[in-house]
């Protein structure tokens, strides 16, 4: 019983008894292809957890199941005590899971502010009739939502001068920022980041790492990260889960995972 080691949740705060998110024997098959195979894992509340693994290991498929874009073929996903294995993506967002995408998926022809306002969709009430008649209640909601969107954009570090710029015209780094702001706008408890540092230089990566910690500490967020940049992963994660060929091959804190021969093998190939 050396690996995987069952670690107690890191001492980041009180009340981390029940995990915020847990998957139980989750598998996903596409036809004959097994993309994710029998993965059981947990994310304690207010932690930063990473999933790593070589390309094609099933990380993004796993993410897509957590956010409802795919339904697991087998197994259960439990978020905050509720089974969300068969829940629609928009309902899952309402329950408190938000995400970003590996290849940024902003609404290209909407401004940064509008993008973040869409992120608040589920928290808004205005319906068809309300939107047409625009009573004071709806006006107020619109104003508040826009204000919050701008706040959120400033929080992620987007310059005020580009708040109203169309998403497509933003620099790559700013697009990443807007995507995180859009995800944060839905007031999530769990934030899923799919390779957020892809295409960033080391300084930008460092800043993002610091920002993730800030999110956890200031906003009580739990963060699940898919990441290839080992420096980021090792620096920020409290726990790491390693997937290879759809299976969980290791789990533990950064030091353990780094020392695990299975992980080394998955990344570098067998020795000798």
């Amino acid at each position, binding site marked *: 019983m050396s690996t995987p080691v069952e670690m107690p949740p890191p001492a980041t705060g009180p009340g981390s008894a029940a995990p915020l998110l847990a998957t139980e024997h989750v598998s996903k098959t596409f036809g004959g292809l097994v993309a994710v195979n029998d993965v059981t894992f947990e994310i304690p509340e207010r932690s930063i957890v990473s999933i790593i693994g070589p390309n094609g290991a099933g990380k993004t498929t796993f993410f897509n199941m957590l*956010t*409802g*874009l795919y339904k697991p073929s087998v197994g259960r996903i439990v978020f905050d005590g509720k089974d969300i294995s068969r829940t*629609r*993506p*928009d*309902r899952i*967002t*309402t329950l408190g899971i*938000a*995400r970003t*995408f590996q290849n940024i*998926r*902003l*609404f*290209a*022809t*909407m401004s940064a502010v*509008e993008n973040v*306002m*869409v*992120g608040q*969709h*589920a*928290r*808004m009430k*205005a*319906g*068809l009739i309300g*939107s*047409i*008649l*625009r009573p004071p209640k*709806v006006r107020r*909601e*619109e104003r508040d*939502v826009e204000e919050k969107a701008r706040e959120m954009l400033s929080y992620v570090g987007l310059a005020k001068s580009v708040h109203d710029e*169309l998403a*497509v015209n933003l620099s790559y780094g700013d697009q990443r920022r807007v995507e995180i702001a*859009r*995800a944060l706008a*839905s007031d999530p408890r769990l934030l899923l980041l799919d390779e957020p540092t892809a295409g960033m230089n080391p300084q930008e990566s460092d800043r993002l790492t610091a920002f993730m910690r800030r999110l956890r500490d200031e906003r009580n967020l739990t963060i699940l990260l898919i990441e290839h940049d080992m420096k980021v992963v090792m620096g920020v994660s409290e726990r790491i889960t390693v997937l290879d060929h759809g299976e969980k091959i290791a789990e533990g804190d950064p030091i353990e995972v780094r020392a695990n021969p299975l992980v080394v093998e998955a990344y570098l190939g067998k020795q000798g």
Partner: protein
Amino acid sequence: MSALLAGTPLKGRENFAIAVVALAAAALLPLFFDPLSNITNNCILAAAYVVMALGLNIVVGFAGLLDLGYVAFYALGAYTIGWFASDHFSSVDGGEGFHVAAGEFASNLPGIHLNFLLIIVVAVVIVGIAGMLIGLPTLRLRGDYIAIVTLAFGEIIYRFAINGDEINFAEGYKLTNGRQAISPIDSIDLPFFAPFDSAFSLRPFYWFCLVLVGVVLLVNFRLRDSRLGRAWIAIREDEVAAASMGVPLVKTKLLAYATGAAFGGISGAFLGSYLTSVNANNFTFGFSIFILAMIILGGLGSIWGVAIGAILLSFINTYFIPDVFNTVPSKFGLDFDLTILNFGIFGFLILLVMVLRPQGILPERRRALELTEGVGAGDAIEVRTP
């Protein structure tokens, strides 16, 4: 004006001001012509088409759902007034008829006669239910498949309309009168206004239709800059991302579809009353394309563009082809009526627009961006639309 042509967004107040000026100018127009002038007639049809085109604009332009069966809602709206404001059901209440706030003339006739304002409500309900029925299963589909199913839906309603004269129920009532048409339809009779009478003056019909245009403009502008409007654009841009941001896809699309349908129904009911008959011949597939062409010509999603596109195509259809250029074939020694070519001409115009100005006459800023900079993806319909 150049800013407008480049697709720079206008502020709410500016749009409101433009709308007020445009509608006021339009309202004065018939005073320069004879009350029964054919020009007024053409203006009424144009206004009715603006209502439909702006309704369809919500579906196609905002939400990006290519609806090729919009005529179905026109037909259902028209049959609503055909059924509930004529002597179609002649032996209702032992031939006494059933009247609710009907006009003085209509209240002595057999059949069901509801006031036009009630008809609008009933039409919206009927069309809304039909929209839900077809939308719920359909709107789970993506892009092109929605187009195929809505096309079939339009055709089904058309077949019902054509063959409805052989579908009997209750005391021998026909569902529709098919090509024989349900006629006459009650004229519009609003509280506090003299009954509309197309034998005396067309102006009241025109002014009433302008009010409908005002309503549909307001709905378009308000919805575009609302929670729903943003969700529609988000869905159009990227369904997966929209769903992941908490936008319920089917419900949101359904709202676009039903809102668009409602205006098709309202305009259909108005045209039924104005033309005093509801004829199945009017509900062909070509009509759906006719309305869609207005949107493409004006600029998908652009509210002012669509209004202009609708007015242009309507006048080309009712004035330029039959009245102005109709003698052109004979000048070339050909012996045919230009009106039989009208859809060919529309097709040619769309072709010209696609080649010369694919973003439409007054493009919406987002669409212009998609076309000029290759932005936006997914199953977008912009350039491939017929």
